[in-house]
């Protein structure tokens, strides 16, 4: 099929002027997208909460107070200060079975979730991009890498994370790493497929035929094509990572229980759930809201940055 019908390339001279006006840098379009604005705004609030937790009335989230265990939200509790005086404050989200203030724990938990989300997506994208580039560009490496990635992908993600946590013992870094590993093959596949398709583009062949060295070819002509899809992918990885950390902690195999994380608060609240549902309710709302915000933002970014993909999903 050597002929291309003129209709396929219908935009000609008259539309040039129009096109040149319409074409704005993608990031400008992205920050105008209502989904990006909405999701981004909620996320910004979460970041502020995480950064300013002590200013928002949070007290030490690890402080155990046997005198005020299992209080319902809104109870006024009296507690001793370090200098022996007593003070009163209202536990607006109640306390848990060790008497810790749930409000403070939820606020500090924001930090853990955001750190996990950001760290996992950065690590997964960085590792996946390097491996994906190598795989897409070096023929002999491709076979080996992709067989390995297929094997890694055959282990359901959360199970792989659970297994890795069980090896390394729990802690923030191991949880992050355990969530990164199952995400890497997905990034590798994405990057590799982009590299393979862009390699066939005439402009890349054109660059080859003017003698462009391989490294320039990769960084100048191929790599930029992966950025927009990777930004989109990063948001979805972050959302899934926050959920995964919460699930692991909820199951009691994530971050150590004294660390305030939303999953830990809920895990702690499981036993007395029937009487004191607030231990699950409040962190649950925060968790769902944060993940929802990231996903909404991701959808908006995909619509603007990666329109081909947004038709597919």
């Amino acid at each position, binding site marked *: 099929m050597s002929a291309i019908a003129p209709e396929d390339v219908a935009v000609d001279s008259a539309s040039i002027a129009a096109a040149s006006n319409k074409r704005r840098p993608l990031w400008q379009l992205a920050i105008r997208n209502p989904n990006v604005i909405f999701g981004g705004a909620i996320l910004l609030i979460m970041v502020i909460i995480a950064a300013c937790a002590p200013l928002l009335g949070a007290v030490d989230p690890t402080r155990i107070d046997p005198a005020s265990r299992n209080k319902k939200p809104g109870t006024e509790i009296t507690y001793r200060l370090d200098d022996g005086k007593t003070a009163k404050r209202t536990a607006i989200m109640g306390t848990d079975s060790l008497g810790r203030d749930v409000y403070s724990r939820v606020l500090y938990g924001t930090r853990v979730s955001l750190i996990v989300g950001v760290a996992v997506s950065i690590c997964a994208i960085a590792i996946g991009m390097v491996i994906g580039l190598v795989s897409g560009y070096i023929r002999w490496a491709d076979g080996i890498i992709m*067989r*390995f990635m*297929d*094997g*890694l992908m*055959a*282990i*359901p*993600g*959360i*199970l*792989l994370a*659970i*297994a890795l*946590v*069980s*090896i390394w013992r729990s802690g923030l870094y191991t949880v992050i790493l355990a969530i990164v590993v199952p995400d890497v093959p997905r990034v590798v596949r994405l990057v590799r497929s982009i590299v393979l398709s862009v390699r066939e583009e005439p402009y890349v062949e054109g660059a080859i035929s003017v003698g462009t060295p391989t490294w320039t070819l990769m960084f100048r002509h191929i790599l930029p094509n992966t950025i927009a899809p990777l930004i989109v992918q990063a948001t979805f990885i972050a*959302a899934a990572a926050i*959920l995964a950390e*919460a*699930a692991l902690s*909820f*199951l*009691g*195999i994530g971050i150590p229980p004294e660390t305030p994380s939303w999953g830990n608060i*809920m895990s702690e609240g499981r036993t007395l*759930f*029937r009487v004191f*549902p607030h231990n*699950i309710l409040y962190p*649950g709302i925060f*968790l*769902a809201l944060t*993940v*929802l915000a*990231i*996903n*909404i933002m991701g*959808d908006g970014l995909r619509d603007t940055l990666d329109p081909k993909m947004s*038709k*597919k*999903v």
Partner: protein
Amino acid sequence: MLDFIARRLVAIIPVLAVVAVLVFLMLRLTPGDPAAVIAGDNATSDQIADIREKLGLNLPIWQQFGIWIGNMLQGNFGESFFFKKTVAELIAQRVEPTLALALCTLIFAVAISVPIGVAAAYKQGSAFDRSVMAFSVLGFSMPTFVIGYCLIYVFAIELGWLPVQGYVRIAVNFGQFFERMILPSITLSVGFIALIARITRASVLEVLNEDYIRTARAKGLSNRVVLMRHALRNAAVPIMTVIGLGIAILIGGAVVTESVYGLPGLGRLTVEAVLSRDFPTIQTVILLFSVVYVVINLLIDISYTLFDPRIRY
């Protein structure tokens, strides 16, 4: 056709081999003496020596792998020192709740999600379409255990319609079994429905843009016939693919859901095994889930031939 199946079967061998190697290496990556790790914290030195002997830990590593994989292939999965049973027995006991949960979820989710996905695509841009899309973002963002506890709170605790937790074997009392499956299945379905509905909508929309849909309309067929006879069958392959890939989410979700509802299934077993660092059980469960996942996807691959005559590669 047989040739096709044979080729697909052969193609999964390297995948399973990589999985086996990864699972095998898992134990080697843990710090300390593997025999001591396997035996657990309360083992005597005789028990450890016995294990060392059985696994051939004094042999070179590739021979150890040979012994291990040989045992696995014969169904000799080792012994759980924590549960004081063979792993095979343990798994046989725990398989029913997980299987029941997975099947109920799968049937329920597919029965709901495919029709709403198709309807959303058909009424693209309508209020219905937008609410399906909104639900799907929400479904991705809600943590399974939060959904689970919300459902328990509303339907079991407040309304008292269904039992809160627990499991009754199907052979013991089907009615009780069934009513205990309802909430867990709905809980686990939410994310699955969100995923499949979204992909169904996208696939149908993509197919509706194809040239042959235009041809079908040019034949004077009604919209309903175009949708049901031409679009849906062509959209089937991506939908089936995502159902297959979604099994991984199902397995991960099952771990959490079983914990929420107190179902004594393989997911709970995994968590218990990790908490007690019972490695033979962890290894076997992960291997088992991965094999199931790969085989289901193989079956789905083969089923494509029913939908699309072009696939005979």
